[in-house]
């Protein structure tokens, strides 16, 4: 029996600009179950990070959540995100080199975070901090070291320790490995996955890397131009993608087997439209090879909770 931890209902994030109001996230509904890893994929500008920022309540003005609801453990939380921020929901950012305050020791930053959310003494917090470092594979004696004394991969481990220090129920990992060397990426991902599985912590993993997604997540959500294009079990979506955009993404993922040596990569023609110049109907229609009249006039709904595409509706 899967229990719902987080539910987004018709989430909309808008930005007021001189060229009008832009929808960075447009009518997004999805759920995250307890203990599961949900991957969100999409190109840059598809609204993945904005979704993460909206959940934790950290959208920089002039952006704001303009519509929709965010439910966390059966409670509406979009009106008071600061109550859950850091304690129930924490975040791992893309660049570990800039995520840590360079002027304060890692231990200091850990202890401070623990003290902000848990009823423990300073000594207990310090002990917890050391345990946390040990868990992510860092020598606890390095608690008084400054961030610059660690390599990129090590710093991302510290960031993970920080994100898990308060035993949150949900971790939002925004491109956690993009800034790391390929050889370190797998280690950090495995660590994040292992620690969250052990604690039953849910993860929203935001990435543009289909490979990372395939290895790590239980379910996948594909976003395009601020809208949800497809969502489903990782195996399902990868083996039988329904939305033409997902199919294109899969086809354009480079593989390293001998068969594909020298062959040209597939490309989806065109580029994702700018948010101020979205086409009517399905946002993907100008790039879609299977688009027909209906796709150009009206926006497709989610069909059987899987993909927002008229083709699927026509098939059923």
């Amino acid at each position: 029996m899967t229990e719902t931890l987080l539910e987004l209902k018709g989430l909309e994030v808008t930005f007021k600009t001189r060229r009008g109001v832009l929808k960075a996230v447009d009518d997004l509904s999805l759920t995250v179950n307890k203990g599961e890893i949900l991957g969100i994929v999409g190109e840059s500008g598809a609204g993945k990070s904005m979704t993460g920022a909206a959940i934790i309540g950290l959208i920089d003005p002039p952006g704001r959540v303009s519509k929709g609801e965010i439910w966390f453990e059966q409670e509406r939380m979009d009106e008071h995100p600061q109550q859950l921020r850091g304690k129930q929901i924490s975040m791992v950012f893309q660049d570990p080199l800039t995520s840590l305050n360079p002027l304060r020791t890692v231990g200091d930053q850990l202890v401070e975070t623990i003290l902000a959310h848990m009823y423990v003494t300073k000594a207990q917090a310090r002990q917890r901090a050391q345990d946390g470092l040990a868990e992510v594979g860092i020598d606890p004696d390095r608690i008084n070291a400054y961030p610059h004394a660690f390599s990129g991969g090590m710093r991302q481990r510290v960031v993970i320790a920080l994100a898990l220090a308060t035993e949150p129920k949900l971790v939002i990992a925004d491109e956690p490995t993009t800034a790391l060397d390929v050889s370190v990426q797998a280690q950090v991902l495995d660590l994040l996955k292992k620690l969250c599985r052990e604690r039953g912590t849910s993860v929203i993993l935001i990435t543009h890397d289909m490979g990372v997604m395939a290895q790590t997540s239980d379910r996948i959500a594909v976003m395009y131009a601020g809208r949800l294009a497809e969502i489903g079990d990782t195996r399902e979506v990868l083996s039988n993608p329904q939305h033409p955009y997902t199919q294109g993404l899969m086809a354009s993922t480079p593989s390293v087997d001998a068969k594909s040596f020298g062959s040209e990569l597939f490309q989806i023609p065109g580029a994702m439209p700018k948010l101020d110049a979205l086409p009517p109907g399905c946002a993907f229609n100008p790039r879609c090879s299977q688009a027909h009249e209906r796709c150009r006039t009206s926006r497709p709904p989610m069909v059987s909770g899987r993909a927002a595409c008229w083709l699927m509706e026509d098939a059923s």
Partner: protein
Amino acid sequence: MLLIILRRLGQSIFVLFLVAFISFMIFRYVGNPVDNLLGQEATTERREALIESLGLNDPLHVQYFDFVVRALQFDFGVSYRTGMPVAEMIVQRLPATIELALVSAVFAILLGVVAGVYTAINRRGFIANAILSSSLIGVSLPTFLIGVLLIWIFAVELKWLPSFGRGTAVDLGFWSTGFLTISGLKSLILPGIMLGLYQMTLIMRLTRAEMLEVLRQDYIKFAKARGLPDRTVYFGHALKNTLVPVITIAGLQLGSIVAFAIITETVFQWPGVGLMFINAVYFVDIPVMSAYLLLVGTLFVLINLIVDLLYLLIDPRLRDGQLRRAGS
């Protein structure tokens, strides 16, 4: 770490010797000290005797060496105008200037940093914008005009504060202080504001700009995402990262507070070294001028040295000899 400190010390001493050299050259070549000391009707023998006793026949480097040795013993010669030893004049007048500089520095740094942080955090707030706009006045009005305005409002119209002088100073033997009497403290307010206002607005604008820059950094976002209270994010994480550039400018400004004290001391007839310098310029009192130059030079060098050491205290990356800039 120790190496960095020693190297900075070495550099400071070198700069001090250079300052001493310039100050020595002024003493030696601007005007003729012998003429100044003897006047028109002296006999040739007396001139020769004085030149010999002043050591003016010695080669240049020997004279320079003598000058430095005497300067190290706080012997800067005798004022042409008053006939008093210059060192004694400086010791008499330095406390007044230092106290004034201290008051305006504390005023400038405290208020500047606080207002800078406030305007950065409440970027769109009404009060923040009001502070910012009025700070433009502080930057663009000339200092002496502000001094005169202050005197007009608070001394002439409201009669709250004295318009000139130092009030009653208490002599502690080696130091005469205005901090211990009410009239002394009251006298410090107006010149302190006048001297510190420009530096205050400068520090405020710099703090604000740096703070805004730091608040955009990922570690601030991450600190917020960890649910730390705003106070901790702003003061525990952001402020410290803005301090390195702010301290640099504040340090340099502290030096110029002493240098600019000349104008303030003139407006308020403040009995400090600045006023002494201005009077020395009127009378071409070369020993006083060169001693003042040496004093201000030393002060600048000292402040810079302290600023550099403060960097090491603030930024652990510099302690480890890793000279990358903040943010990386």
